[in-house]
């Protein structure tokens, strides 16, 4: 046996350290990510459940038509029984966890239909908007970083000013100004989203520009640091052109902080979607959330929060993968 294995080193490597070791880290990584996802979802549900009990206000009122409803005492009482609000807090909490574990998000107070149905109907619109805006933001931010990386000090200054301006513009104002220019003054684009491609342009641009400003700032900074580093100098000494240094070496460094900020970017997109969908009268999760908040529809708010938290966990896992892909230094870990 011993002679066999030493005579064939490749065989040894494959049999003792092959597939299992290559796959074990992936399994560990997946398990850790899944555990973290379950934890975050549990914590979000628990935090909201606890907060509802801490803050004064009667959920039964929200069920019967929101704050200020003139529902009778009997109607409130029957609503409480219907939604299980008359049972002890511990039982309510365990029921909630049990329902969540089986994928049951409860019934919306205001719409009186299952929360999962509402979410399934509203998710695609928001997802399309967010993905479109994310891509546009990356293109603009990378473009700005490349422009200032290749264009010297003057270009860097212009890029920096543009980024600060973009990052300082609130979604709600940018959206309004775009509507003023492109719908009211020039009549190029429809002021509300009507399902056409033209109706999608302004919402995506509104959502993307502030994000592009933030991403551009960190990307440019990282690009400049990379261009001043010893490895860039040695690449230049090898005779690499400046464009080659930027594209082949510095671009990775510029992209890294952008990838690391993905979780935060998702937050910016979700927050922005609430405003953008409201301005452009687009159906979606953001507008659903806003209506649910106004009506104090707790199950629906919890549902949107859980979907968003799940998206955050998934995006964090993907950005971890992307970082490994871009940065060879952390691949072994």
């Amino acid at each position, binding site marked *: 046996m011993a002679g066999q294995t030493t005579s064939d080193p490749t065989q040894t490597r494959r049999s003792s350290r092959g597939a299992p070791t290559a796959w074990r880290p992936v399994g560990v990584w997946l398990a850790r990510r899944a555990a973290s996802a379950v934890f975050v979802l549990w914590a979000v549900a628990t935090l909201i459940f606890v907060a509802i009990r801490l803050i004064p*206000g009667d959920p039964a009122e929200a069920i019967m038509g929101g704050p200020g409803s003139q529902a009778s005492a009997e109607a409130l009482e029957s609503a409480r029984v219907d939604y299980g609000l008359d049972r002890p807090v511990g039982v309510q909490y365990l029921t909630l966890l049990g329902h969540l574990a089986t994928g049951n998000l409860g019934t919306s107070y205001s719409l009186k239909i299952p929360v999962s149905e509402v979410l399934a109907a509203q998710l695609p619109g928001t997802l399309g908007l967010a993905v479109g805006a994310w891509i546009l933001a990356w293109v603009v931010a990378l473009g700005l970083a490349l422009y200032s990386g290749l264009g010297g000090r003057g270009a860097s200054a212009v890029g920096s000013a543009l980024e600060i301006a973009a990052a300082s513009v609130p979604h709600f104002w940018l959206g*309004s100004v775009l509507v003023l220019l492109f719908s009211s003054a020039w009549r190029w684009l429809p002021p509300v989203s009507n399902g056409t491609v033209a109706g999608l342009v302004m919402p995506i641009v509104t959502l993307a520009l502030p994000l592009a400003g933030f991403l551009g700032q960190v990307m440019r900074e990282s690009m400049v640091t990379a261009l001043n580093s010893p490895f860039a100098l040695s690449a230049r000494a090898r005779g690499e052109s400046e464009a080659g240094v930027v594209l082949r070496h510095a671009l990775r460094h510029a992209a890294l902080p952008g990838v690391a900020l993905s979780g*935060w970017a998702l937050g910016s997109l*979700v927050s922005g979607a609430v405003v953008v969908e409201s301005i452009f009268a687009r159906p979606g999760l953001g507008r659903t959330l*806003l209506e649910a908040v106004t009506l104090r529809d707790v199950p629906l708010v919890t549902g949107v*929060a859980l979907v968003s*938290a799940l998206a955050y966990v998934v995006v964090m896992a993907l950005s971890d993968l992307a970082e490994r892909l871009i940065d060879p230094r952390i691949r072994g870990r």
Partner: protein
Amino acid sequence: MTPVSSTMSSLPGPFPRGPGPRRRPGPRRRPGPRRWPGPGVILPALAATTACFLVLAAVVPWWLAPTDPLAIDPGAAFSSPSLSHWFGTDESGRDLYSRVVHGARPSLLIGAAATALGLGLALVLGLASGLGGRWLDAGIGRLVEVMLALPGLLLALVFIALAGPGVSTTIVAVGLTTAPGYARIIRSQARALRGSAMIESARVLGHHPAKILFRHLLPNALGPVLVLATLGVGQAVIWASALSFLGLGEAPPAPEWGAMLAAGRTYLGSAWWMTFFPGLTIVATAAASTVLGRSLQRRAVGA
């Protein structure tokens, strides 16, 4: 700062300098031709001027705008910008310039209060996490992770859904929204400081932990926190006006920027100035806070 530097200078040998007092900003000799001052000077100067005007508007608005921001003049409703009404008038004929100027106080106060709340919460969480034991660190880290998983406006909206809309809710909501990000930054800085030679030597000298915290750690944390606050106020103003814009913050008759935008939304097609000018003021505020914060940051790092 004195105890820090005296501890440093009494140390023998070439200890690495911790993030204590840095070299003073001043003229540094640079080889080669004189550099064009460039945006490195122009942008901060512009930002400082904007900030001065904003503070002036918040403290003594009647100096800049003597007209009553709530005075109704139905005959002059929806006037476009002119010499008598620089920013035009709204649906009740109220002067928008005056309203924007008088709106500086509530808007900036909400932004500053939210930032103070967020930073205060983050300071407690970050220091406890950075200086406490492993379990405390892990626990707070998880809490911050969960808060980050509920992004920005969503956390604020969930809080408003539970507590009901209003100005104080807005402040708490925006403060809660910004706290986890700050907490991460403060934690990492507390970690770095804790491992520095300065703190180590103070510990070896047998100083009480409370003394180390209040005389060494907090004074050194103050600079970065002030930078964060300067950077954060602009974003907090944006968050707070977003909530008013969505109808969940200050209500429209009040001269608050977000509320003014919400009121202008109805008349977007006919009276663009009702949306344009309050929004421009918010943009200027946020940009000034970013530029000032970043130049403070550069100065603190000595770059």
